[in-house]
């Protein structure tokens, strides 16, 4: 498809603006004035509509395809959530920050506060801030809170411990806060090696970051012990909530001993992913970390009104502009409101059921490095297929031609040729059966005609793309007219 810039015609006009009702002001001084309008597209409204409608049709998405992308929880995004969020479109975030302004924003403040309260109950934490704008942002915020805690106690801390199965954002976030990383390998039983963990734990460890169930989809039975060991060193336990969907209503990180957590509302609570964002990454903490929470903090007064607190002395300060990705928060709160207590329990049960079903139905044709009951996702390896020259990426492209978004491949890094399947609870047995059949077909084809994979995908607007050329040429901006 042509770029919108290539479709532009000089002088073509799009959306019309209201006429001015004020006199034209004198020009800005020449040194400050732009000489030429920026070379934005020049297109009619119909051009724009056709262009972006056409682009949209070049995407796979949850609404058009089964999307079992492991670690991403691509569940159905209820359409009504968009309507719910749209109700809050007109409200300006400066209003509650004006003097006496909070009484003009009770609805928005109330939603943010009550969402935090619901998330605190769901996770067993004492308080939740909704300010972080995505999971990784939540991680960074959480580690900053931990740093503030240690600083306040006068602890000298240097390290953050992560298992080697952790998501890349965990070490990256800890690094951004100035910590060094200690990585603990995974034991053959699929969880962090406990002995190695004991070895690395010293009083210089600030925190241990865990995902639970981990990125292999496995629940660590020693998690309580790990918490105890960490606490013995006054290290805090950090819970990466990306996989919370597996344990809603079953386990609460706060009950187990985690001190700081983040959630991914765009995963667990049904808000759409938008092609990569926006998300929302609220952070929950135990009591001892509350004084350090980011400002502005939204509070509820005894009379039931909501307000914005003056920054606490110990607060780490703002981590983003206002109160978080409010539109996303509104959708998540709508989701929690609709699904309710029983529904959330059903979510984790059905997510786990679906994942185990897929695991059972495929484990005879794909290698299963950790053959145990999984939680919400399962990780296969294409190692067996690699013997005939077919890699995980080839199987991914085969799936595209069959109308399935591929599972996550090559993550977690500790599994060779990983194929990480997360069906989510919103998919039905029919959909899973059809997917299983296609996955089995791929395994058969890898045996019978491995060369066939080279030309895949063949049904898409483009065939396989040359990523090396992209990295070498770094064409990241269109230089035509």
């Amino acid at each position: 498809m042509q770029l919108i810039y290539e479709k532009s015609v000089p002088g073509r006009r799009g959306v019309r603006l209201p006429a001015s009702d004020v006199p034209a002001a004198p020009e800005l001084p020449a040194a400050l004035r732009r000489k030429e309008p920026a070379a934005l597209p020049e297109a009619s409204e119909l051009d724009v509509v056709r262009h972006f409608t056409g682009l949209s049709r070049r995407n796979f998405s949850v609404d058009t395809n089964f999307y079992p992308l492991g670690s991403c929880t691509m569940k159905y995004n209820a359409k009504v959530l968009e309507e719910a969020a749209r109700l809050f479109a007109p409200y300006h975030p400066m209003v509650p920050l004006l003097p006496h302004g909070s009484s003009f924003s009770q609805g928005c403040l109330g939603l943010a506060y009550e969402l935090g309260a619901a998330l605190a109950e769901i996770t067993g934490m004492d308080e939740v801030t909704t300010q972080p704008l995505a999971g990784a942002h939540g991680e960074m915020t959480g580690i900053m809170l931990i740093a503030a805690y240690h600083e306040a106690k006068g602890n000298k801390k240097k390290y953050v411990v992560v298992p080697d199965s952790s998501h890349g954002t965990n070490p990256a976030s800890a690094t951004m806060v100035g910590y060094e990383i200690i990585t603990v390998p995974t034991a053959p039983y699929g969880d962090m090696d406990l002995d190695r963990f004991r070895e690395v734990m010293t009083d210089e460890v600030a925190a241990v970051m865990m995902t639970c169930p981990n990125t292999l989809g496995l629940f660590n039975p020693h998690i309580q012990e790990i918490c105890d060991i960490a606490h013995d060193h006054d290290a805090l336990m950090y819970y990466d909530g990306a996989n919370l969907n597996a344990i809603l209503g079953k386990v609460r990180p706060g009950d187990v001993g985690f001190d700081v957590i983040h959630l991914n509302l765009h995963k667990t609570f049904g808000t759409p992913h938008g092609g990569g964002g926006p998300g929302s990454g609220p952070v929950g903490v135990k009591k001892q970390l509350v004084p350090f929470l980011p400002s502005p903090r939204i509070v509820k007064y005894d009379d039931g009104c909501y307000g914005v607190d003056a920054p606490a002395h110990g607060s780490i300060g703002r981590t983003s502009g206002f109160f978080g990705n409010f539109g996303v928060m509104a959708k998540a709160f709508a989701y929690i409101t609709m699904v309710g207590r029983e529904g959330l329990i059903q979510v984790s049960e059905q997510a786990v059921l679906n994942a185990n079903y897929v695991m059972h139905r495929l484990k005879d044709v794909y290698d299963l490095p950790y053959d145990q009951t999984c939680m919400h996702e399962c990780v296969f390896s294409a190692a067996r297929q690699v013997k005939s020259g077919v890699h995980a990426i080839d199987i991914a492209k085969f799936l595209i031609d069959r109308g399935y978004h591929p599972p996550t491949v090559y993550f977690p890094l500790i599994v060779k040729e990983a194929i990480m399947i997360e069906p989510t609870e919103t998919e039905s047995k029919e959909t899973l059966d059809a997917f299983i059949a296609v996955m089995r077909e791929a395994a058969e084809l890898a045996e019978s005609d491995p060369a066939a994979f080279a030309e895949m995908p063949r049904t898409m607007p483009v065939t396989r793309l040359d990523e090396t050329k992209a990295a070498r040429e770094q064409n990241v901006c269109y230089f035509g007219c």
Partner: protein
Amino acid sequence: MSTASYCPNTPEEVREMLAAMGAASIDDLFQPIPPGLRARSFDLPAGMSEFEMLRRFEHLAGKNAQHLAHFVGGGYYDHLIPAVVDHLSGRAEFYTAYTPYQPECSQGTLQALFEYQTAICRLTGMEVSNASLYDGGTALAEAAMMALRITGRNRLVIDGAVNPFHREVVRTYLANLDVELVEIGPKLGMEDDLRLRAAIDDATAAVLVQNPNFFGSVSDFRKLAADAHAAGALLVVSAYPVALGLIESPGAMGADVVVGDGQSLGNPLSFGGPSFGFIASRKEYIRNLPGRIIGETVDKKGQRGFVLTLQAREQHIKRHKATSNICSNQSLCALRGLIFLSSLGAQGFAELARLNYDKAEYAKKVLGSLSGVEVMNGGATFNEFTVCLPTIAEEVVTALLRKGVAAGVPLSPYYPEMERCMVVTVTEKRTREEIDTLARHLEGILCS
């Protein structure tokens, strides 16, 4: 299965699935979890239908003040949004997709983001842009860290006239790192800022400024850029994208990195989010850009296509050595920004900026003519300006809020010495009548 949780499997199907894997019940599947770890509480209300939820949400939304006339900005602006923006960004294929990791079935998102990067480059006068960051404040913090990486230095100079929220985010991001952050107090009415130029030394990684600044003043940063470059430092400019329809691009003024918040481009106020942060730079710094970048390439048949490129900088490959920890960004908001810019077009966008400028100039004249009210900006402004009142600004704003007008942002919380000042924002949505009403109310309060 109840329909509440959007779980489709019927009880019959659940039985079949359990049978297929030899499990007796769903509880069996949770056997890996030690009994002692089970949730101690899960005290949430029962669910409800979408209709009941919507009624409740309508009630909640109704608890906010309706129809305030907004003369407040502070980084978020009340701009028009053409209907096509909602319609097109509401296409399910855009909004229910994930990050475009599989390029062949994600060309829609990838090409759109490539077009977005192009639009940001053209607006800012830069050569490369990423595919979005979280928001304006975090983008400025990322730019600061980028400058530290590029120069290997550890001192940053930031103008006190940068949005105080954004400065606070920078401070938060840098708090745990070994970096010296020097804030140069603002001086209203001074145009080319000698104070900033004097603060640059050869340990300085970058100077961080904003244009127009928090007080609304538009500056010419060419001299500052020259001084910074002479000292081996970078110039980082935070820009308000709508202003770039009228004022000279930061690139043309010598900026090395340009950041900003894209809310004003087609994203609703929505109580502060989601919007997107943009970051663009000279091409030589591309490997130090944080976040995702889309690049052009070809497929096996030689057809043009787009991919996530330079991923080796990112956390999922580099882990703790990544340029940033960002993973999910604000794609859909960036897409809205692109659709907004495309639907207005080059001329329309320039007209939009002009409307903002004209209306703010009108407001400046009307408010400035009130007895005791003084416009504080020495030089040019775009669509915001600072007025000094004969009385405490917070009290005036409180009184006007009661009349349904959010008259401006009082400066005392951010600049305690400016307790009689407030910043007034006038976007194209404000009508002459609203401006006149603001003036009348203000006069009424100042006289009483």
